[in-house]
């Protein structure tokens, strides 16, 4: 039996860097992965999957791992496997007496990890194809004769080592080693003498090693110990000679790959602790979108994310988002884009519920970064981008457009938007279109969504985006009248 990757099939690297940038996927990945530097994991975040099946394969693994017991079992297993690998790495450069120990402990760690993990997982209900496959794989290893023999000899070697106790005397430049044969513990004597005084705040003297514990001096003491404990030494030596190779390649690969899941779950939990939801997305086949309580992960980390809903039965696929400035419109669009993107990686998404089509591509059109060397104007760039998107868009494309055509008059902007969106509609593509031109929201074939002011203070945003017609009164006018600058009052003041 050979190992099959716990990641299932790999996706395809995003062709356009722009989408990763606009949806802030790299920032997301860096929040999730933290200080993890494994290139494999970073790459995975840039490789959306091609098929529903591939996504479901991963989501099923997640469903298993969302059981706390399963998660803990896997996490511990991975830690131990990595530890065993570390020991073997250290072994390469160690002194001979240390090599024996490093090798033995790599084996002991690995054996315990594998057995314990297998036991734990067998008692838990694991349903995903990915984890069940891996269980079958390690079951075979554990039942094999080589593993059994290795375990037996490793325990034997450990027992031998545990018997060794020596008395050491350091005097001047000499180190003497004897077999230990009793002696009085000086610390205990002192402790007893001063027990008659009340315990205060107990301080601990820390020993901070300034040299390695695997030095030639340590090796020399070990050598002395081995000379005084000959049989024990032979047993340790034999183990290393008989079992030069310890870890199975498939197990090593699993331990590396499964961290994709573990790190994401760890991240999820940190947000869930603060009251934010995550859900396993479902993929709809009838064009429906129904996402409830989705929010921006990066804001949630600061504790300031406001959840929103977005839904359609699939007959209308274009959402036009208008409303007050700084009202959360862009965040709304970006966050929805992120939900879709994460679902395409086979990851649980930041929402209470998420039913979405399996989009084949996500396209973004955000305000261009100013580049003085660029020969095209902003408006031109917008149009280039829009047309480029339209060329490739089809019924399974999601377009996130943020203030497209905003550098011209609103009449012109309206016209351009209308044309663009009509084209989008023709292709059956989905689009979230953020704009400050309210007329766009009045187009018959779009769903109008509006950023709402706060109820307590209507001059402040609530960051809630709700369906409905765009507001009739502008926020700026309301604030002005609060300071007596409405038409009537101003007129009455000016004599």
């Amino acid at each position, binding site marked *: 039996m050979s190992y099959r990757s716990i990641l299932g099939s790999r996706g395809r690297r995003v062709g356009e860097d722009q989408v990763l940038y606009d949806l802030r996927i790299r920032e997301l990945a860096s929040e999730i992965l933290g200080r993890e530097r494994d290139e494999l994991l970073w790459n995975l975040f840039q490789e959306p999957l091609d098929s529903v099946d591939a996504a479901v394969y991963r989501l099923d693994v997640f469903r298993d791992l969302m059981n706390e017991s399963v998660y803990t079992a896997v996490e511990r297993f991975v830690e131990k496997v990595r530890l065993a690998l570390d020991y073997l790495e*250290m072994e390469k450069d160690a002194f001979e*007496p*240390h090599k*024996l*120990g*490093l090798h033995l*402990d790599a084996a002991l760690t690995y054996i315990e990890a594998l057995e314990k993990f297998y036991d734990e997982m067998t008692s838990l209900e694991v349903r995903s194809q990915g984890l069940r496959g891996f269980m079958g794989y390690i079951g075979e290893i554990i039942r094999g004769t080589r593993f059994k023999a290795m375990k037996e000899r490793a325990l034997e070697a450990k027992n031998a*080592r545990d018997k*060794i*106790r*020596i*008395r*050491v*005397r*350091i005097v*001047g*430049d*000499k*180190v*003497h*080693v*004897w*077999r230990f044969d009793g*002696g*009085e*513990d*000086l*610390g205990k*004597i*002192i*402790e007893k*003498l*001063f027990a*008659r*005084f*009340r*315990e*205060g705040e*107990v*301080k*601990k*003297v*820390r*020993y901070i*090693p*300034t*040299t390695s*514990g*695997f*030095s*030639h*001096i*340590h090796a*020399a003491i*070990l*050598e*002395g*110990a081995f*000379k*005084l404990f000959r049989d024990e030494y032979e047993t340790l030596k034999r183990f290393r000679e008989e079992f030069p190779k310890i870890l199975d390649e498939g197990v090593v690969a699993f331990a590396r790959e499964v961290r994709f899941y573990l790190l994401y779950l760890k991240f999820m939990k940190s947000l869930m602790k603060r009251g934010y939801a995550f859900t396993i997305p479902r993929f709809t086949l009838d064009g429906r979108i129904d996402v409830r309580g989705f929010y921006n992960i990066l804001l949630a980390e600061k504790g300031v994310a406001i959840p929103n809903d977005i839904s359609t039965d699939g007959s209308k696929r274009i959402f036009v988002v208008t409303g007050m400035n700084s009202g959360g419109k862009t965040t709304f669009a970006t966050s929805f884009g992120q939900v879709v993107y994460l679902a395409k990686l086979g990851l649980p998404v930041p929402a209470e519920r998420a039913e979405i089509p399996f989009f084949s591509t996500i396209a973004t059109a955000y305000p261009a970064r100013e580049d003085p060397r660029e020969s095209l104007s902003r408006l031109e760039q917008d149009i280039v981008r829009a047309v480029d998107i339209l060329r490739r868009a089809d019924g399974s494309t999601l377009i996130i457009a943020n203030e497209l055509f905003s550098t011209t008059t609103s009449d012109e902007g309206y016209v351009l938007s209308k044309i663009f969106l009509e084209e989008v509609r023709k292709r059956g593509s989905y689009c979230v279109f953020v704009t400050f031109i309210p007329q766009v929201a009045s187009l018959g074939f779009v769903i109008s969504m509006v950023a709402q002011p706060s109820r307590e203070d209507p001059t402040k945003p609530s960051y809630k985006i709700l369906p409905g017609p765009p507001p009739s009164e502008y926020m700026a006018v309301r604030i002005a009248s609060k300071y007596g600058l409405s038409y009537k009052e101003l007129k009455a003041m000016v004599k």
Partner: protein
Amino acid sequence: MIEFDLLKLEPREKIATAEDVRLDLELDKIIGVAASNDKLIAETWLEVLLSKECPKDVTEYRQEAVRDALKNRGSVLRMYQIAREGYEKAYREVFLYRLDDPKFVVNEASSGVSILVDYLEKLLEVVSNTSFTSIAFRSLADSLISNVDKNFIDKAREINSILGFGSSVDFSVEIGVLNSLVNPVLLLPRNEGSIVSRLLSGEKKYTYRLDPRDEAGARILEDLRNWVLAGVATTVLNAFDKLLGFFRELARQLSFYVGAINLSDFLEKAGIPKTYPEINPRKLYFENLYPLSLAISSGRKPVPNSLDLDVDGSFAVIVTGVNKGGKTTFLKSLGQALLLARAGLFVPAERFVIPSTGAVYTHFLREEERTFSYGKFEEEVKRFRTMVEAIKRGDYVLMDESFVSTNHVEASVVAENVVSALLDSGVNVIYITFLQDFLHRFIPKYSGKAVLLVPERLSDGTRTYKLVKGSIQPGYALEVWRKIAGENMNGETA
């Protein structure tokens, strides 16, 4: 184990508004006299005076000890001196600024132990030669004598000499994970004679000798030594800390009594009487109670006050009347005496009987609150609320013109609600107020529990600065007006 507790101050918790009480009742003046420039005494006094819990038996326990300390003042002062000197010498001469160098710690801590053992010897001598009578001082003496004897002192000195053992360390060690050396245990060194005999007996030994050019190896040997000493370093350090802690704690507890000796001296010099208070749940009674902080700051013997009040669960003393009549001085003097009394100290009076040893809280007018503003009123109420959160039955609340940051009509309603509620829940209230609505409604309603005091004015109009029982009468509006409006808006035409 050496056990002593001269203060019974556990739990060491101050009342919630300790800082207000300290300022309002001018405690720093009193503590200044008790401490006479000794910071430790000042700290202890502040803590004892403002401690939250002070049950009757603790008060009596300390009272007995205070009497004992005044009687054996020579020994108490000497013990305090030894404790402080020992502590300070060890503190000065032992450098334990880094706890990551075991060898260094072992050296410093064991020299500290040897300093303190010398002082223990001195202390033992004083204690053995004094006959204390109070439970507090007796049990300190007994515990010391039975735990610290010649044998202990000798052994402690012997260990100090072993720990200065120069360059050789003996230890046992095992082989653990990764074949690292683990569980080092420092052993009592074998004497040389037996090693020789072991060698002769043919015991197997392995010896490694460092190459003279191996500088890295020498560093590692040093490091190994440090590693082995880490365990015993912690032990010696904690032994030293325990000893040091003993001296610190002894000095702290004694400092309270040294303060009492100082305050007693002050009263005697000023010709002010002192009395040990009594506790009687049905009585608030005092005879010639002297305002202590005033005596201290003025250097004169001030006018004392007397009062006799039957207490039924709780009492209210309401004070009103002309300014500069001694109202606030009275309030402070009563608060100070209550604090001294519950702490187990004597009070400056001929006689002093209080119904409980409850905590003392103050809510005094802050000058910035003397203008009407709901913002300020809210702050004032907030402050009151913080105080009330900690209050218990039997406590004392001292209020000086509370609730004047809003108009008196509504302030009276608030005051009436607050004071009635406190009184009915068993809390004692002493309240200086000019709130007429309050006075007229409250005094008749609580005639059984409340007493009204006013500054005494003789028939010729002179003020005596004494307070006497009075009755409610209208006519303070102008005074209130002046108080709030200031002197320039006095309504008179030029």
